C-alpha cells in the first residue's frame, strides 16, 4: 500500500552520470514510468543537487569526471540515507563490493536492461519506505513470519537451525538488495568471521536445500557472483 502511495506521488530520482546520452535515456524511460527526474553531470553537482532536490533515490555512475563514485557515496552517506543504485560499466567484483560496502544499495552493470533497472529501483524505493518492517514477508511460496520465527514453503513449515534462520532473516529484511559476503558474515557470525566465506557457502547451500524447489537452479536466494547474495 505504502509503495503504491510512493509511486503515485511520483518518486524523485536523481541521476548522476557524465554521459548526456545515458542521462537522456534514463530521463525518457523513467519519466515514462512516472518518476520525476533530475540529472547531474559531475559528482559534486550531484551532491549539491541532492541537497536541494531531495530525491527519493539516486542513480550513480562510478566513473565521473571530478570525484570517484565511491567517494560520492561516502559523502552522501554522511548526511542522507537516500537509496543509491550504482549504474556502471565497471564489472569487476572489487568495484561492486567497494560500492556496496561504502553504502550503495544496489549495483547494476552497464549495459543493462531497462526492466531490470526498473525492478531494482522499485525494490530500493520499497525498502526505503520501510517495507522491511512488516512482520510477515512473502516471496512467492516462501513465507517468513518474523514475529514467530516461522518459515514455510508452499504452506509447509520448514525447520531451520538458528544460523540458517538468521541468514534468511537478514536476506529477507533486505529483500531485493544485494548483501555482500562481508556484510552477511559480519551480521550473522560477527566481525571476526568476515573472511570465512566457506561458512556462508555451506549455509546458503543448506538453506537452499530447505527452501528452494530446485536447489540447483535457485529462485529465491540469488547468487551475485563474487559479490554476495540477494533474496527475491
Amino acid at each position: 500500500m505504502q509503495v503504491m502511495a510512493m509511486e503515485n506521488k511520483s518518486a524523485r530520482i536523481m541521476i548522476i552520470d557524465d554521459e548526456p546520452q545515458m542521462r537522456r535515456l534514463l530521463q525518457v524511460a523513467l519519466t515514462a514510468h512516472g518518476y520525476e527526474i533530475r540529472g547531474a553531470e559531475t559528482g559534486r553537482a550531484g551532491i549539491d543537487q541532492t541537497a536541494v532536490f531531495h530525491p527519493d533515490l539516486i542513480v550513480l555512475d562510478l566513473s565521473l569526471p571530478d570525484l570517484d563514485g565511491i567517494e560520492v557515496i561516502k559523502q552522501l552517506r554522511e548526511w542522507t540515507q537516500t537509496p543509491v543504485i550504482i549504474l556502471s560499466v565497471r564489472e569487476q567484483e572489487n568495484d561492486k563490493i567497494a560500492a556496496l560496502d561504502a553504502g550503495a544499495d544496489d549495483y547494476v552493470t552497464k549495459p543493462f536492461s531497462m526492466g531490470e533497472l526498473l525492478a531494482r529501483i522499485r525494490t530500493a524505493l520499497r525498502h526505503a519506505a520501510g517495507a522491511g518492517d512488516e512482520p510477515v514477508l512473502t516471496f512467492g511460496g516462501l513465507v517468513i513470519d518474523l514475529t514467530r520465527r516461522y518459515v514455510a514453503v508452499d504452506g509447509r513449515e520448514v525447520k531451520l537451525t538458528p544460523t540458517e534462520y538468521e541468514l534468511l532473516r537478514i536476506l529477507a529484511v533486505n529483500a531485493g538488495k544485494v548483501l555482500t559476503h562481508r556484510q552477511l558474515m559480519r551480521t550473522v557470525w560477527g566481525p571476526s568471521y568476515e573472511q570465512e566465506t566457506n561458512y556462508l557457502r555451506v549455509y546458503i547451500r543448506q538453506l537452499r536445500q530447505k527452501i528452494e524447489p530446485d536447489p540447483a537452479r535457485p529462485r529465491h536466494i540469488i547468487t551475485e557472483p563474487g559479490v554476495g547474495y540477494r533474496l527475491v
Partner: protein
Amino acid sequence: MAGEKRADPDAILAGIKEEGRGTLTVFLGAAAGVGKTYAMLETARERLEDGLNVLAGWVETHGRADTEALMAGLPVAPPHHLEYHGRSFAEMDLDALLARKPQIVLVDELAHTNIPGSRHAKRYQDAEELLAAGIDVYTTLNIQHLESLNDAVAQITGIKVRETVPDKILEQAEIQLVDVPPEELIQRFKDGKVYVPDKAAEALRKFFRPGNINALREMALRHTAKRVDHQMETYMRAHAIEGPWSAGEKVMVCISPSPFAARLIRYGRRMAANMQAEWFAVYVDTPRHMPVGEDEHNLLEKNIQLAEELGAETVTIAGDSVADELLGFVKKHNITQIIIGKPLRPLFREWLHGSLVDYILKRSEGISVHVISGKSQPNSTPQAQTAGRESFQILPYTAIVLMIALLTVLAMPVRSYLGQVNIAMLYLVPVLFSAVVWGRYFSVVAAILGIISFDFFFIPPTFTFTVFDLRYLFSFAIFLLVALMTGTLSARLRQHIIYARQREARMVALYALSREISATNELEKALEQVAKKVYESVESQVVILLPGADNKLVVRAKSDAEQKILVDENEKAVALWVYEHGQTAGRGTDTLVGADCTYVPMRTEQGILGVLGVRPRDSRHLSPEQRRLLEAFASLGAVAVNRIQLVEQAKETHLLAESERLHAALFNSISHELRTPLTSIIGAVTGLLDEDDLYDSVSRRDLLQTIKQGALRMHRLVNNLLDMTRVESGYLQLSKEWCDVQDMIGVAASQVEALRSRPLKIEAAPDLPLVQADFVLIEQVLVNLLDNAAKYSGPDSEISVKALHNREEVAISVADHGPGIPEEDRELVFDKFYRLRASRQIGGTGLGLTICKAIVDAHGGRIWVSGNPGGGALVTFTLPLLAAAPEKIPESEPSASAGDGNGE
C-alpha cells in the same frame, strides 16, 4: 698564433693521424690569477672575429670586470643544474654542446671535478668527448693540477692538490703558456684581484709566497719546454731520423721479478724527478726467463704496480733476448738513461755468453747506463723465499730422514757387493725425489743428510765422521755439486710443471666455458656462466654489463648475488668508456685508474657487445697472465652474446609473423562478428524510425527483438575480447574464495539466455566439497561451455552438466547432443580463433574455449574435449582440491537474540 700553427707540418701530421678529432688548446698558468681565462677569452674573440663558430661552454669570470667585459658578445651555452644532497649545482651542459656542435667550445678549469651524477667524473673527460666529436676545445689549467707533478707540488707548497688532469690529455694539446712575473702575481693577489674561495683563504695566503710561485712558474715553463721537445721528437720520427737526440732526458728502468727491482724503480723515480724526465719501467718477457710460480708472478706484478704508482710508464715486451729487446726499446723511445741491476752471482751462462749488463754497455753508445749493485738486498732471488720459509714443514724432513734411513738399512748388508760408488748413487735418489716433490731447499737438505750418512756408515772408518782418505772429501764435494745441480734443475722443472698445470687449468676453464655457453640459448644463463667461470679462474668478483635501452650499460650478470660489487655511476662511466673505446680500462690499467674494477671489452667482429668487469679479491691487481685470460673470457662471452642475440632476433621475427597472422585472424573475426549484429540493429532501427506507420505492433516487436539480440551479441563479443585481453596481458588475477560448485552451475545456467527454453539436466554429487576458485571466472567458463553447447546442438536437445569429485579434484563436464567435435580437432579448439569447419555459419569469435583454457590453467586444472557417449560433444574441466574446507562451522551466536529482538 694559431694561424702559424696551422702551417706547422706537425699539426698537419696530427690532423691526418686523428681524423675528425678536435684540437685541444690549453692555456697553462703557474697559479690562479695569472690571467688564463682572460687569455682564453681574448683568443676566442679573435676566432669569433675570424668568423668561426665559438661557444662558451663554461667560463668562470669570478666576477672580474675586465674578464666579464670580454664575455660580451660571446655566445654562451646555458649550464644545466644537477641536484646533489638536496642542493642544486650548475654544471657544463655537455649534451647541449654536443648537440649544437660549434667549431670551438670554451671550457674553463679543466681540472674541475663534476658533481656526482654527471656523465663524467671529471671535466677533462667532458673535454675529451667534445674533442672526439670533432669540436675544438679551449681550456685553462694551472700547472699544479697536472698529475705527474702532483707530488712535487705537494712538496713545494704543502698543499695536496686533489683535482688532477692526466698528463696524456696535455700531450695531445696545443699549450699556450700564460705567464706573469711572480711579483706581479703576488701584488695582484694582495690587491684582491685573485679569486679566492672563502674557506681556502688562509691556505691560499700561505700559497702565494714568492718561493711557491717561482717553483710553480718554473714547472709550467719546464713543462711547456718539454712539450716543444716532444713535438720535435715527433717531427724527427715522422722524418725517419734515428735518435737519440739530446732534447730531454728519458729514463728506462729494467725490472724483473725480483725484490731487488723495487730499489731500481725507486732509484729511477728519483733520477727522473731530478731530471724532470719521462721514465719507463720495462720488463722483457722471454721464454727462458719466464717467471716461475705464483710468487715470482706476484713479485713482478708488485714491481710493475710500484712503478706505476711512482709515475712510470710501464711496458712489458715479449721477445727472445732481454738485451736486444731492451736496446730496441731504448732506440725507439730515445732513452737517455738506463738503470739496470747487477746480478748478485754471475751464472755460468753469463761467463759463457757475457752478462746482460756488459752486453748493454757495449751496445748503448751515447746513453748513460747506471748499474746498481744488489748487495744490500738479502733476498735477491725469489726462490730462496719460496720454499719452506713461511712455516716449518715437518713432513718433508721426516720423509727425507726416513728415506735415507731406509736406504742405509737396505744398503748395509750388500755394501761390499755394491761398492761405494753405487751406494753414493743410491743417495742421489732422495735428493732428486725431494727436489721434484718439495723443491730445491729440501733437495739440499737431502743431499747434506745423504753425505753425512754415507760418510758415517760407508766410508772407512765406518760409524765415525772421520775420513781417512782425503780423496773422499773431493767425492763429497762432487756429490754435493751434482745433488745441487740436479736438485735445482728438477725443482725448476717442477715449478714449470706447476705453472703449466695452472695454464692448463685455465685453458680447461676456457674450453669448458665455451662448451657450456654454446649449449644455452638463454642470454641470462650464458652470462651467468661466464661470470661464474671468471670468478673461479681469476678469483675476482665479476660483473657483466650489456647495453640496454638508449645505449646505456645495464648490469646483466654478477658472479654471485649478495656480493658487494658496486656498480655506481662512476663505475658505469668507466664501463661505458671501455664499451665505446674498445680498450681495457679501470683499476690496474693505465686508463681511468680510479675505478673499482678492471673493465674488459667484450669484442666480436660486429663490434663491442658489452663489458666484463672484475674486482680482484684482497685488492690485488691482476697479473698480465690473468688479464690475458680475462680477455679470452670476455671474447668468448662476446661470441656467445652475439650468437644468442642473433637467435633472439630470429625468434622475434618469427613471433612477429605469428602475431601478424593472429592480428589478421582477429580483424577478420571481429569485423565479421561486429558487423553482423550491427547490420541487423541499424537495419531494424532505421526501419522503425523512417517508416514507423508501416509496421503493425507484431512486426515492430519483431524488429525490436532483432535489435535486442544484435546488441546482446555484440555485448558478448566485447566481453570475450576484454577477457582475452586480460588473459593475454597476464592481468588474469584470481581472487580465490571458497565456492560451491553447484551454486556456480546454477548461476551460469541462469546467465545463458539460450538455455531458458531448453531442457537442462544438472547432476551434482550431494557431497561435493567446496573448492578454492575464482567464482566469477569459473562461472565464465561454465557460461562459455553452456553457450557453446546450446549453439552447437539442436534447439530442443538436452544439455547436461555433471559435477563429480575424487580426493584430488572436482570434475565438471558439459555435454550436448550436437554433431560433436572431430577427433583431430579436439586439441585445436583451444587455440585462438580456431573455428570448426562445420560451424562457420554459426556466430562466434573462436575465443570462448581459449579463454576457458586460460582460466582453468590459471586455477591449476585441466580442460579437454571428448565425445559424449550418447553422441555430441563433451567438455570437461577440473579444479584441484588443494585444501579441504573446514568441516566444523560454528553456529552463529547473536542470531537468536537478534531474531528475538526483531520479532518482539
